[in-house]
């Protein structure tokens, strides 16, 4: 066994233990430790990715060399390593981009607690990505929920406490359903390790026993995770949680936390149940329907929203809808499109949040849509970045959003007839709705404001030198977006290979 194979385990461990460490040191040191941890884990994930690409197969890592069912297992392939690397990159950039807001919005003596939460969140995300054990996954789902609540609540005002409470209730409902599903599976199969469960489920499916309980289990787990990742009718917690929390929380929550759950769902589909069984169970059709509705309704809500942060948040509802629509198509191509959209949306949404905050900085910290008039001139880089993010969301070629739309459409035209039309119509409608509210905002930020109005409100110009960290983050996000949009073929190939290894 090569040394690099230990890295996934190390990275979970490092992030897990750096959390408590941050609780006993000061805010500044905690911040440095946090950035260092993310960097180190990112580098490790890159090494693991390199290793898995070279070896061409996934490997199973036994923690402490105890074989299952006594020990705990990690399973690593290209897909997992790629996700881990990507999550680290996005998290790193979000943390840099939001550093200014954190010093302003978080009480100084509580600052180190924020990094506790972030480190725990990272460890739970990594665990969700790597673990091969259903119950471990559940444990880290809970850690994830709690730290996400902390991230929302750390900026203390009435709205965030309300938002965190709401998030807690909805999220716990989701976890509860997931737990029920896991219990049923344990009851039926007698295993908690994913590969063992899959064997048994295949047998059950072949024999036709426990048909209905199996169906119920899959639905419970899907609905649980759908609630946690804010699929359309379960999205009520989302706009407040993303809209009022501090910037880096919003960026991380929208681009990573919900994606971690979705990745767990992919894992359940492929590694616990088996995708063909899921497809036969018609659950995917339900997900497809909800995804399509979400694509439209999320955009409609975003159009009606007058607060830019909440608008970006509502747009997430639509994008989550895309991802579930991809699963719902029920083909490998659809899942690959969804996985690509996970990456694309993570890169774009955090870009939009950071750029949006750059624009509000230049508008007297007002998030109201009308106060943003001319903000693109007052903060040039943020204006450009917001435009890039919007174009990507709308699906302009060169940016990542275009490739995901292309992949979704390809998957849709190759699928069954009754899904082809709804999928394409929803894509078309949602694209146009996206264009309506994103282009409306771009037009707004580039509409020159009246000079006296700017003076009266005391809006100031923000230059790159004023916000170095945020500018670096913005530029990196733009580059990431364009890299995904122009060099998509290698990424898609990795996703395809990874998915083959994954199952």
């Amino acid at each position, binding site marked *: 066994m090569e040394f690099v194979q230990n890295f996934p385990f190390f990275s979970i461990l490092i992030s897990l233990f750096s959390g408590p460490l941050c609780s006993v040191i000061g805010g500044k040191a905690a911040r440095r430790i946090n950035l260092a941890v993310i960097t180190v884990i990112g580098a490790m994930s890159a090494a693991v990715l390199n290793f898995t690409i070279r070896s061409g197969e996934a490997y199973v890592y036994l923690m402490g060399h105890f074989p299952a069912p006594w020990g705990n297992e990690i399973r690593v392939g290209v897909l997992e390593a790629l996700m881990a690397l990507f999550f680290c990159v996005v998290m790193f950039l979000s943390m840099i981009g939001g550093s200014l807001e954190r010093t302003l919005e978080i009480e100084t003596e509580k600052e180190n607690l924020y990094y506790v939460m972030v480190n725990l969140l990272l460890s739970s995300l990594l665990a969700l990505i790597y673990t091969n054990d259903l119950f471990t996954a559940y444990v880290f789902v809970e850690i994830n929920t709690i730290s996400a609540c902390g991230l929302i609540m750390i900026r203390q005002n009435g709205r965030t406490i309300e938002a965190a409470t709401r998030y807690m209730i909805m999220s716990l409902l989701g976890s509860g359903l997931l737990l029920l599903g896991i219990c049923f599976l344990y009851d039926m199969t007698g295993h908690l390790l994913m590969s063992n469960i899959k064997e048994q489920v295949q047998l059950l499916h072949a024999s036709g026993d426990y048909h209905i309980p199996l169906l119920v289990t899959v639905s419970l787990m899907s609905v649980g995770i759908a609630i946690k990742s804010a699929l359309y009718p379960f999205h009520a917690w989302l706009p407040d949680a993303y809209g009022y929390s501090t910037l880096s929380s919003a960026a991380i929550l929208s681009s990573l936390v919900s994606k971690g759950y979705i990745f767990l769902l992919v894992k359940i589909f492929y590694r616990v149940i088996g995708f063909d069984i899921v497809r036969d169970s018609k659950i995917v059709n339900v997900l497809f329907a909800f995804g399509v509705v979400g694509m439209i309704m999320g955009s409609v809500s975003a159009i009606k929203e007058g607060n830019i942060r909440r608008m970006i948040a509502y747009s997430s509802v639509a994008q989550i809808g895309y991802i579930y629509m991809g699963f719902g198509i029920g083909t490998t191509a659809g899942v690959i499109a969804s996985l690509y959209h996970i990456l694309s949306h993570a890169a774009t949404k955090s870009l939009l949040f950071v750029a949006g905050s750059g624009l509000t900085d230049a508008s007297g910290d007002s998030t109201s849509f009308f106060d943003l008039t001319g903000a693109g001139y007052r903060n040039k880089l943020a204006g450009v970045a917001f435009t890039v993010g919007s174009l990507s969301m709308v699906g302009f*070629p060169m940016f990542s959003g275009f*490739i995901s739309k292309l992949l979704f459409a*390809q998957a849709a*035209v*190759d699928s069954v007839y009754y899904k082809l039309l709804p999928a394409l119509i929803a894509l078309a409608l949602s694209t*146009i709705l996206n264009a309506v509210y994103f*282009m409306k905002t771009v*037009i707004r930020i580039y509409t020159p404001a009246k000079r006296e109005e700017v003076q009266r409100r005391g809006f100031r110009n923000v230059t790159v030198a004023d916000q170095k960290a945020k500018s670096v983050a913005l530029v990196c996000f733009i580059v990431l977006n364009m890299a995904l949009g122009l060099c998509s073929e290698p990424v*898609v190939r990795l996703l395809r290979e990874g998915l083959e290894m994954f199952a």
Partner: protein
Amino acid sequence: MDAWILLPVFLPVLAGVILLVSLALEKRKKGEEQPDREPGEAELHNLHRYVAVALAVSGVLALAAAFSGEHSVTLFELLKGIPVYFHVDDISRLFAVVISIIWLVVAFYSFVYMKHEGKEQRFYGFYLIVYGVLMALSFSGNLVTMYLFYEIMTLTSMPLVLHNGSREAIMAALKYLFYSMCGAYLGLFGIFFLYKYCDTLTFTAGGTLNLELAQGNITILLIAVFGMLIGFGAKAGMLPLHAWLPAAHPVAPSPASAVLSGVIAKAGVLAIIRVVFYVVGPDFLRGTWVQTAWMTLTLLTVFMGSMMAFREPVFKKRLAYSTVSQVSYILFGLSVLSPVGMTGALLHVVFHMVIKCALFLTAGIFIFRCGETRVEQFRGIGKQMPKTLWCYTFASLALIGIPPTSGFVSKWYLAQGALEAGVGVFGIVGPAVLLVSALLTAGYLLPITTSGFFPGGIVKHFGIEEKHEAGSAEEASVGQSGQENNSAAQADAGKVAETNRKADSLEPVPEMLIPLVILAALAVLLGLFPNPLINFAGRIAASVL
């Protein structure tokens, strides 16, 4: 290796990016206090030389790429089975050559014109980039590559519209962006369907539609194609997505309006040609409701554009409406799906490009020299700038289609094509609408000539804002053009005397006039000797129909 055919794409893009980057660096160095400092004469001269050399070299490379036989090159795979692929065929040749010539000619004109607009470096940066993108668009070998560069063209040409930064310009640019994107998405969703039902998205004369696969899904495919026609028609100013054009073209600086109206509107035509004749195949559309709807829309646009132009008092807006109408002539020629009609359409692509550029350059000279923008203010202008107005008149005659100018040839073929295509009532309605529209064209273009040369009553003297320019222009009119460039010092010295001597002449400097004369002469000469072009266009039409 055929990769060198991408040089005319990358070279101007690179040159443009260098300009923009150096501009940004310079701004940073100078600090924010004086960002809008006017560049000195020598600096400008260097800039012009740089742009001219970059354009000339890439133009030569483009011609070489176009005329050295069949080339194809795959750049990289965007997605599996969807490469970014370039291929040079006859249509590419036609567009690449004409665009290159126009782009170079207009660049020379703009060297003088842009002095009064300012921000030259930014303008030329984007001007070069758009040229590269247009070359890529012409050389695109499959539908997705074309779509990619189509969208990039929208984005990179937007700064040309935005140039003067006024509120009106920004609104117009955003309108342009919004319409273009909505149009392009309609096109994109069509591409998704074609991807499923076509053997390949690579352009193949006559189409690649797999009729066996399409069996049973004809209706949906027709809807998709119709969406693509509407969508790509947005760029060409076809109803119903035409409203951006009269807003966006006039607010740009005149050289930019010229290329926007003359060239970029044709990109929509190119896209439609590629979709209809090289992917879907004309046989699939013949006789369907899509063809009928398409013909109806184009004829409506032809008529409506002319009417709006007729009613419009602002000169550049009038020309923009005229573009709406004229580009739909081309689309009508395509929509009848007959070889003669398509020949006419391709001819009109070339002729309209030349003529509309000439007209916009005239408008630019009027604005530049007397600062007037409305048509009724041009009374008596011919007394003071006869050469300009003569060029305008020739270009107008060509656009109306009076023999022996170029417009006559293309309209002849368009009408012939409609008559013999066997499209029922459209065979008669079409030529009739074309005729009515030609009358309207005469109605909205010629009054400027008549009132310009024969004002009647009191003649207004146009203000002379830049007297030293008038001085050097006067020198030119005596015939000493060429090497005696209008060095500012020399002109300043003789300024007073010369203004007194011949205050009446407002003719622009030769650098500005010569491009106009070239274009106007082309507009006439192409009508006198159209045979090579007709043969070439006929060959293209025969290969796809």
